[in-house]
């Protein structure tokens, strides 16, 4: 028996190999699997899975940054995101303790970054001064301040906190009439900071390439005072493989983290529901009579319920977790293969060997599970593959309406965030195209596999 089945499987594989798109589907499936297995190294932000909705985790990224590869298609490069660690750290310990350090930023891009941030963590009584020196020698003072006690975090953003200081630094280069007409609070501070000091610095700044050296000087008062962290963050115009969204999140990491959920949702739902459907259909066909009629009536009730609406209302009322959502989908998905399976079972049960098994005293259960269901396994696999895209799309649709499980990252939820923050009409294509493309691609993968099996199983459809 066992050898028979192996031989059957081998001949099935032999035929499957002949269907080219089936093989393509299989390859894509393996690629997705590899993506899930190597999720750790693929994630550019390690804690994406747990901290996707934690805004603190993403504070150092730029908002609405385009993918890095956009630079291949533009003549004026966008500045890349970067975190600059301290260089040339000099510590003085005699008398007052003090620390001096540099943060050189090599600016070669054609367009300024979206923001520059100084990110500090200090403890105790500390006096600090932060300045940045431009390639043309002009300097901008970020801050000169003394902190009292306790530990605190300092985040100084050029775009939000330093507009007036930037204005003072470069105003002398502009026509006095134009400069005085400008409201310092409304200038493009980052553009001016990285712009040539000349006419038009406020309206159309021309980039000034070179090294921008940020210097941090800290005086530590008392024994307990210390500098815990210091870095300069360049929030670029481009960031990561797929850019960032309106909440500064790295979309590539989100996409990678969503892959496993798409696979889990799709495979689990189709596996359970097709298994249930096949057993249900075979049982119904095998027993016939009143069992068949009763099972048919129940089947018809489930078929008459529109799927997506009931799933939406169930999700809205019961606010399910992702696992409950999978069970909910199974409750309505199992009807898929029933009708075909039942008609196949009606043919199968007329075979002589079934009658022979009866004669030998085999129980109904034995006949169903040993003699009939094994014959339906290839069909079951085909319908499983074809049920996967539906499950993924339904979960995405429920998420799109805002009813997804907020403890996980799914592609549908990324699209919900995009749609609800108006990315469509702002043209933030890198927020919308990749997640949907991923859904479509995974759907295509399983469609390829499923249709390939279908062609093999239905000899009538053969063209050769």
């Amino acid at each position, binding site marked *: 028996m066992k050898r028979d089945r192996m031989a059957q499987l081998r001949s099935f594989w032999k035929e499957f190999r002949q269907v080219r798109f089936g093989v393509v589907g299989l390859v894509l499936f393996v690629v997705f699997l590899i993506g899930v297995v190597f999720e750790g190294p693929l994630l550019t932000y390690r804690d994406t899975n747990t901290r996707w909705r934690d805004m603190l985790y993403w504070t150092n990224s730029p908002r609405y940054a385009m993918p890095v590869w956009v630079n291949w298609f533009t003549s004026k490069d966008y500045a890349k995101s970067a975190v600059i660690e301290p260089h040339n750290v000099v510590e003085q310990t005699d008398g007052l303790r003090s620390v001096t350090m540099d943060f050189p930023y090599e600016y070669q891009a054609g367009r300024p970054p979206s923001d520059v941030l100084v990110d500090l963590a200090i403890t105790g009584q500390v006096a600090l001064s932060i300045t940045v020196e431009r390639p043309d020698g002009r300097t901008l003072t970020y801050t000169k301040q003394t902190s009292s006690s306790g530990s605190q975090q300092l985040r100084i953003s050029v775009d939000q906190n330093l507009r007036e200081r930037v204005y003072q630094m470069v105003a002398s280069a502009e026509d006095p009439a134009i400069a005085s007409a400008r409201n310092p609070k409304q200038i493009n501070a980052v553009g001016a900071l990285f712009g040539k000091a000349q006419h038009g610095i406020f309206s159309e700044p021309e980039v000034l390439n070179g090294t921008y050296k940020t210097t941090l000087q800290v005086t530590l008062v008392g024994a307990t005072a210390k500098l815990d962290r210091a870095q300069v963050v360049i929030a670029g115009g481009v960031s990561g493989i797929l850019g960032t969204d309106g909440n500064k999140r790295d979309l590539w990491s989100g996409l990678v983290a969503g892959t496993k959920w798409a696979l889990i949702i799709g495979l689990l739902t189709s596996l359970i529901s097709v298994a249930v459907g096949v057993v249900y259909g075979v049982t119904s066909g095998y027993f016939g009579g009143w069992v068949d009629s009763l099972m048919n009536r129940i089947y018809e009730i489930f078929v008459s319920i529109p799927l997506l609406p009931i799933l939406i*209302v*169930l999700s809205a009322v019961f606010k399910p977790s992702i696992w409950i959502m999978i069970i909910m989908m199974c409750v309505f998905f199992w009807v898929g293969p029933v009708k075909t399976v039942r008609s196949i079972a009606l043919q199968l049960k007329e075979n002589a060997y079934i009658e022979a098994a009866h004669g030998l005293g085999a129980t109904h259960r034995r006949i169903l599970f040993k003699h009939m269901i094994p014959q339906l396994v290839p069909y079951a696999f085909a319908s499983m593959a074809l049920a996967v895209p539906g499950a993924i799309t339904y979960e995405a649709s429920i998420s799109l*309406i805002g009813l997804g499980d907020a403890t996980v990252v799914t592609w549908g939820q990324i699209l919900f965030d995009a749609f609800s923050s108006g990315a469509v009409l702002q043209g933030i294509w890198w927020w919308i195209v990749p997640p949907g493309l991923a859904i479509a691609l995974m759907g295509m993968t399983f469609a390829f596999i499923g249709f390939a099996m279908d062609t093999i199983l239905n000899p009538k459809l053969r063209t050769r």
Partner: protein
Amino acid sequence: MYWKYAVRRVFYAFLMFAVIVFIFSALFNSVADRVLRSQIQETVNGESRARARVMQNRDPNEFLVWKEQRKAELYRLYHLDEPLMSRIFWRTIDTVTFRLGQSTIIRSSAGSQSVMTIVTERIPRTLLLFGTVSLIDLILGIILGMRKARKAGGLMDKATSVGTMVVYGMPAWWLGMLLIMFFAFTIPLFPSGAMHSTPPPEGIGYTLDLMYHMILPVMTLVVLGFWGIAYIARNIVLGTLQEDFIMSARARGISERRVLFGHTLRAAAPPIVTMAVLGLLGSLFGAIIYEGIFSWPGMGSLYWQSVQQNDIPVLMGNLSMTTGIYIAGLAFLDLIYGFLDPRVKVGGKA
């Protein structure tokens, strides 16, 4: 005998609707009760404020008693004082007779808070959009399917089959987003949503304006939809082409064209139409929230609205009505099938 079958089928559809509404009522009983109770509380509060102004100098105790009485009266009216099974039963009766209650927030365009009015004013809009799509899908699908079947295994057949599979798992609403971004944002050719310009133009301009607004949503669904129908049609036609009567027709020297359109299509039409419309029913109800992307003010958008504003009565009413339309569609399909294909045993055992 056809009409007997038809009457039975329609009756069966009503029965099915009642059973499903009963299941819904049981499933969502507690949340529906809760909403109704808070609605009654609000009504009583409102009435008592009005009453307080009239009878200012009365005994405050008497006032409280009146309030309780009024509440109990309303509870009795809505069967809220009865046991669980009876509450479910009465809710089923109410829903089946289309008494869907009052919404909590959402209003119809005329300002009514009756759920029935809110839902029914949207039905024609949804039917208009999805009806147009189905018709175009069906025509394109059958034409393409016939061509595919005629040269099965040919280049076009293979290419379009791959097309079917490529769009198989693509969410319609995502393609909608892309097309809006492209045709409303990058190249402002079509409106990004809604059914009319505001204010809507009069006369013939009204229809033209409506059609202009329909182009993008219809186009999106058609681009995704007709492939599946073409694939189904191809398979059925291909199966029919292997029948004996086709071989005999060919042997008699009947032209290939007549074999295809006269003999094959005639035999294959009923299953194609049912399969296609069944598939459309499923996919359209699967795409219903797609309306929200185009702010098309139909039943699908109502799901968005009621979820966002947490308007449970509207959500429930919408679900019941959607289910009703779906069941009606299935029944209609069976009736057409019985009409198109005399081989269906009318009135006999299936």
